[in-house]
Structure formats: structure tokens, C-alpha cells
């Protein structure tokens, strides 16, 4: 594994090359939080597509703006602070604008989005963009905020000084959008700006911004911004963390509890549909494949949608309001100890529900190395798919004794499993930071944007992008993988009339389970449990239903399963199949193992390579094996 020195090397990804359909391309350029998405969403609506630039995990969006017969392609470039091209985002923007990009043709014009709430800094960025020599126009966003703070911006004078058209815009009320859109249709004929002096260094650009602002902008000396007053409470040393915990508890509750009924509804609909198909189609292998391979596989994909939708709705809402960066500010020190950053907190918290949306949520982490580390440790967080496995094994094999006050041994152990998962994630991140994912070229910096009323269209579109990416990219891996896992258990076919457990025993999965028996024998796992582990790759909780099948028990109510696990005996020797040390070893295995194809698929999608999911799978499997063997051996020692 190579050491990572530069951010740009950390993550690689797939290619999307736009088709050349003869439309002129207008690029939207601006800093983060400048209101660019509002303009992009207003221009293009649902015609937009999200893609990834090859070689980097930078997401680009493009869409079509139509006015009557005419239309142009709008390219939404990533938000950036400067053109020093030290991060993948900046390299992409810089390459595209200068025509050096090999996968995106040089745009025909630039619509620069000037943040009305951060004029000086935005002008500095504009200076770099102007020197690219493309036809340019400017949209001044947050135009209402300029007035709110009692300031005055002379738009006409700004336009004549820069020699390009300037459009004031109030995005959330839709004011000025139409004018800008109409002009953008003919964007290719915008004037090419002339800059009267070299603007090579940041100091040159700041001086240039000063000279422009001195001529066009007046601001009263007194600062009356509401944001400061809100921050006095939200970032207060005592009240701030309290608000933080309430918001995070709400977020957690939403994805953990509220998503549950919807997930049951989605997967219930899929299995009912499967049962309905099975009821009328001729019995045979094709029906089996359709119902248990394809339809169950689709179920395995759609079951994630409620959590993804709820989580990203809330994340984008909190981001739009301005709270997300405050939360990251409050959590940064704690996460920084183990080489992560404040924004990793929300992603890892989400992983308690499911690592899939959690890993998707890492996209808000600007540092590529911090993001990679967060993704590589995310699967340790005790996700909701582990809960049924833990609950069943603890319920069956751990005596329910009082420990302290109302605490009882079963509950304490379950809590301990969550704590162990989180601690392992932190420890692993610390180790990764000091070994293979070293250092950040860029400093940590984060803007606290002014609090704003959210634009719901932006929130819903952003949520929709996550959903479509999940279905389109991760679904493409999860569905075939589910079908493959079904195939492993269904082939080769046993003779007609044998029990399901006999079918599984002589299937490919059964043979694999027996083949790896020597490897897992020190953990007390026999081939039956090994099959359960192989099957659980589809989703961890599948180990329960698979064991039930192998042990030849019908029905899946909790009591039945607990009794089944306790009483299952080897039909030949009469020996108990599962005992306390084996159950503890199995729990230990599931704490660490990355036993989930969906997580691997989303990690592949988000890092752009199979290298990182393969690495995560390998190191977590080794840890899981060591933990299982250690737990089994120690438990046996104590019991003998």
C-alpha cells in the first residue's frame, strides 16, 4: 500500500465523458456556499445529471437551460476558494477553464457567481477567473443580504469597471434568475474581460478587490449581523454542546427509528411481490432465480432508500441553514485526536444506522485524506444490521443477571458492543493517520457561513442526487452480488425432495463452508456457521435466517430462534452445535468483520477504486478472525 503524501492521490474514480451535442456550454464558477447551486437548480431543474471527473472524486453536475427554442448546457463546477490547484476540486476547475482538461471541453463562457455576503474574497477568486480570458458575466447572489446589512453595491458601476454584464440575484426568492437565464442563453457572446494589471499573487488580487470595492461598495461601520447573535448561543461553551447533542440525537433518532417502518414497508412490498410471483409462475429454477435472486436482490437495494432519503434530507437541510459547519466546529477537536475532523462525526454517527448512507455522507468532508480515513473506519460502527445478530446470540447464550441497579448483564454487553465498535473505529483511524493515510497538504479551514433560510428546492434536489447515485452506482453492484450469493446456496441442485438444509450443505456455499472449516476451527465455528458467515455478506442479519435454515428449523419468531440456537444438535454425533464460547466468538467476529457487500459497493463508488474496499475488507477480516479465535479460546479456558 503506497503512502499518500498529497490529497490529490488519495482517491481515484470512474469516468463520465459528456457527449458533444453542439450546445454551447456555460460554466458556473464560485466559492463554496456562494449560492451557485440555487442558480444551477433554477436554471436546469430536473434536467441535471451528476457525474464524476475521472481520476478524482470530484463531482460535477451539468444540465440544460432552455428558453423557447434555444438551449445551452450549464456546467456546475465545484466550489473553490482559489486556483492554486492543491486540491482535486481546484485542479478540475482550473483545467476545465484553461481547456487543459482531457474529458471536458473548454466552456464557451463563464457565469461567475459573486457571493454578496463575501464580496472581497469572491472578487479575489473572480480575478483569477477573469485572467482565463473566457467570455464572462457575473451574478451577484445574496443581493438582499447586502441591503439587510445597510450596505450599497453599485451594480452598474461594477459592470462598467469590469466590462462584463452583472446580474443581481436573490436566489431563494427567484429574483433576478430570469434575467440571468435569458442572458446565459446567449452567453457565448458575453464580452471577454480585460484586466488592467497582473493578478498573480493573492496580495495582488486582494489589492485589486480593494480598489473595486472602494469604487462600487459602501458599508456602514457598525456590524449588526444576526448571525453573530445566533452564534453567541449556538457556539456557547456550554449551551453549544447541548444544542449539538440535541440535534445529533434527533438526526440519529430519525434514521434509526423513523426509517424502520419505511424499510419494513419497502422490503415487505418486495417479498410480497416475490410471493405473488411465486404463487402463479411455474415452479422451477427460473422462478427461484426470479423470486429469490432478482426480486430479493432488488429488495436488498431499495431497503436502503428510506435511510438515505431521511439522512440526506436532514444533512442538506442543516447544511443549507448553516448549522452543519457549526456542528463540525464543535466536534472538531475530539475527532482531530484520531486524525479525523468535525465533519467526520455526522458520517460516523449515521453509520450506527447503516454504513452505506454514512459513507455517502463523507462527501461533505473537504480533505480527501480525512474523508478516506472516515470511510475506511466507518464499517466498525455497530450498524442496525448487527443488532438482530447480537440480540439473538446474547438472548440465547448470555445469562440475564443483575449487574448494577437496573442494569442487567445482557443489556450491558450489548452496550459494550456499540462502545467497542466506536473505539475500534477511532483507534483504527489513529493508526491509519500514522501509517498509510498520512498528512494533509492543505491546512484545516472551514467557513462558518451566515445563517440562512433554506431553499427547499436545493435540499430536495441534493437528496435526490444521493438517491439516484445510490441506485445507479451502488445498486449495480449490490443486485448482481445478491443474485450471486443466492446462486452459491442454490447450486448445484440437490435431488428433488431433499430438505433445504441438505440442499445448502451440498451447495457451493456449503462446500466453501467445509473447505474453510480448518481456518475457523480455532474460533469454534463449524461448516454450518461458516455458511452463515458467507451468506451474511448479503447483509449481516442474513446469518440468522441462514443458520435457521441449516439447522433445519422453520419459522423465524425470536423465541423460536433462541431455542433453535440453544438446542440445535449435530444429527450424527448429537453434540450441541452452538455453545457460549462459540456464540461469543461469533459476536466478536461480527464486531470487526466488513461482512456486507453493500458497504463494499458504496465504498467502491465513493473512492472510485476497488483498492480501498479490498483493503478495508482484508484488514477488518483479519481483525475479526483474531477477535473470534481469541474470544473462543479465552471463553473455553474460563469455562473448563
Amino acid at each position, binding site marked *: 500500500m503506497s503512502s499518500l503524501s498529497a490529497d490529490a492521490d488519495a482517491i481515484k474514480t470512474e469516468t463520465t465523458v459528456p457527449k458533444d451535442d453542439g450546445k454551447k456550454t456555460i460554466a458556473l464558477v464560485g466559492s463554496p456556499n456562494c449560492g451557485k447551486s440555487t442558480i444551477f437548480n433554477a436554471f436546469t431543474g430536473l434536467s441535471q445529471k451528476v457525474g464524476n471527473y475521472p481520476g478524482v472524486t470530484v463531482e460535477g453536475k451539468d444540465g440544460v437551460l432552455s428558453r423557447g427554442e434555444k438551449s445551452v448546457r450549464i456546467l456546475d463546477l465545484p466550489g473553490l*476558494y*482559489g486556483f*492554486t490547484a*492543491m486540491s482535486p476540486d481546484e485542479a478540475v476547475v482550473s483545467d476545465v477553464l484553461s481547456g487543459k482538461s482531457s474529458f471536458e471541453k473548454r466552456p464557451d463562457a463563464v457565469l461567475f457567481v459573486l457571493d454578496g*455576503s*463575501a*464580496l*472581497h*474574497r469572491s472578487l*479575489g*477568486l473572480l480575478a483569477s477567473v477573469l485572467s482565463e480570458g473566457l467570455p464572462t458575466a457575473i451574478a451577484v447572489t445574496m443581493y438582499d443580504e447586502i441591503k439587510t446589512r445597510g450596505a450599497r453595491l453599485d451594480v452598474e458601476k461594477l459592470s462598467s469597471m469590469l466590462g462584463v454584464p452583472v446580474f443581481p440575484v436573490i436566489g431563494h426568492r427567484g429574483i433576478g434568475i430570469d434575467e440571468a437565464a435569458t442572458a446565459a442563453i446567449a452567453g457565448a457572446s458575453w464580452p471577454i474581460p480585460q484586466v488592467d494589471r497582473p493578478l498573480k*499573487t*493573492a*496580495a495582488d488580487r*486582494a489589492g485589486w478587490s480593494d480598489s473595486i470595492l472602494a469604487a462600487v461598495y459602501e458599508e456602514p461601520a457598525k456590524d449588526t449581523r444576526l*448571525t*453573530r447573535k445566533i*452564534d453567541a448561543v449556538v*457556539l456557547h*461553551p456550554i449551551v*453549544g*454542546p447541548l444544542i449539538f447533542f440535541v440535534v445529533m440525537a434527533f438526526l440519529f433518532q430519525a434514521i434509526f427509528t423513523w426509517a424502520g417502518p419505511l424499510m419494513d414497508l419497502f422490503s415487505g412490498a418486495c417479498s410480497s411481490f416475490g410471493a405473488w410471483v411465486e404463487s402463479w409462475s411455474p415452479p422451477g429454477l427460473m422462478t427461484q432465480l426470479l423470486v429469490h435472486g432478482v426480486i430479493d436482490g432488488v429488495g436488498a437495494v431499495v431497503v436502503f432508500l428510506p435511510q438515505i432519503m431521511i439522512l440526506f434530507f436532514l444533512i442538506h437541510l442543516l447544511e443549507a441553514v448553516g448549522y452543519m*459547519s457549526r456542528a463540525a*466546529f*464543535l466536534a*472538531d*477537536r*475530539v475527532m*482531530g485526536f484520531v486524525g479525523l475532523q468535525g465533519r467526520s462525526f455526522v458520517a460516523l454517527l449515521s453509520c450506527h444506522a447503516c454504513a452505506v448512507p454514512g459513507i455517502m455522507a463523507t462527501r461533505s468532508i473537504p480533505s480527501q485524506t480525512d474523508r478516506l480515513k472516515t470511510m475506511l473506519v466507518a464499517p466498525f460502527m455497530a450498524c442496525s444490521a448487527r443488532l438482530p445478530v447480537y440480540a439473538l446470540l446474547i438472548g440465547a447464550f448470555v445469562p440475564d443477571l443483575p449487574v448494577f441497579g437496573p442494569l442487567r448483564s445482557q443489556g450491558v454487553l450489548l452496550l459494550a458492543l456499540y462502545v467497542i465498535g466506536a473505539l475500534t473505529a477511532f483507534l483504527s483511524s489513529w493508526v491509519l493517520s500514522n501509517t498509510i493515510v498520512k498528512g494533509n*497538504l*492543505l*491546512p*484545516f*479551514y*472551514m*467557513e*462558518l457561513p451566515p445563517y440562512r433560510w433554506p431553499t427547499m428546492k436545493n435540499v430536495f434536489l441534493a437528496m435526490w442526487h444521493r438517491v439516484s447515485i445510490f441506485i445507479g452506482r451502488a445498486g449495480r453492484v449490490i443486485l448482481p452480488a445478491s443474485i450471486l450469493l443466492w446462486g452459491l446456496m442454490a447450486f448445484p441442485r440437490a435431488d428433488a425432495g431433499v430438505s433445504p438444509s441438505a440442499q445448502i450443505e451440498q451447495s457451493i456455499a456449503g462446500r466453501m463452508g467445509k473447505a474453510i472449516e480448518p481456518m475457523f476451527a480455532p474460533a469454534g465455528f463449524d461448516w454450518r456457521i461458516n455458511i452463515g458467515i458467507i451468506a451474511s455478506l448479503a447483509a449481516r442479519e442474513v446469518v440468522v435466517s441462514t443458520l435457521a435454515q441449516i439447522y433445519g428449523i422453520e419459522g423465524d419468531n425470536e423465541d423460536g430462534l433462541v431455542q433453535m440456537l440453544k438446542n440445535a444438535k449435530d444429527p450424527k454425533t448429537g453434540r450441541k452445535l452452538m455453545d457460549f464460547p462459540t456464540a461469543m466468538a461469533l459476536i466478536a467476529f461480527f464486531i470487526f468483520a466488513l461482512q456486507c457487500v453493500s458497504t463494499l459497493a458504496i465504498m467502491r463508488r465513493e473512492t472510485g477504486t476497488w483498492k480501498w474496499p479490498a483493503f478495508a475488507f482484508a484488514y477488518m477480516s483479519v481483525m475479526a478472525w483474531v477477535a473470534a479465535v481469541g474470544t473462543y479460546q479465552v471463553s473455553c479456558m474460563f469455562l473448563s
Partner: protein
Amino acid sequence: MKKFPLTLDSLNERQAATIIGYDEEFPKERRERFEDLGLLPETRVQRLHTSPFGDPIAYSIRETVLCLRREDACRVYVKKVDS
């Protein structure tokens, strides 16, 4: 320059200052990024909020509020001015 110049992280809450320069050993990439963010000589900054464990710290720089970690803020030299 004095032997121990005042650094950005050592300002008191609400204290305003102007930037006078950077530690010469501060990596060039980081310095350039800070300059793009507006941390340039003669720019006025004010310390605003501090995260619960003392790090990071939020500063007001022109019209924006920027959070920096101590490890980077201690490389920026400043001179106190009246708030």
C-alpha cells in the same frame, strides 16, 4: 521582527489584530491557501468563538467567519489593534 511575535491563536476572545506575516517554516501550500482565504498582511482579524476544547478557533476576517486549528493559527503573526 521580535523574537517571539504574537500569533493568531494567542489572541484573547474578541481581540482584534492585524496580520503582519507568516512563520517562514509554514509550508508554502498552507500559506497560499490562507492567503486565498484573505489572511494577508495588513488585514484586520478578530477572534470570535472557541470550540469547547480550545480548538479550533473562529475568526472574523473581512466579511467572513473562518475556523482555523491552533496548529495552523500559531504560524500567523499578528499585531493587536483596538477592537
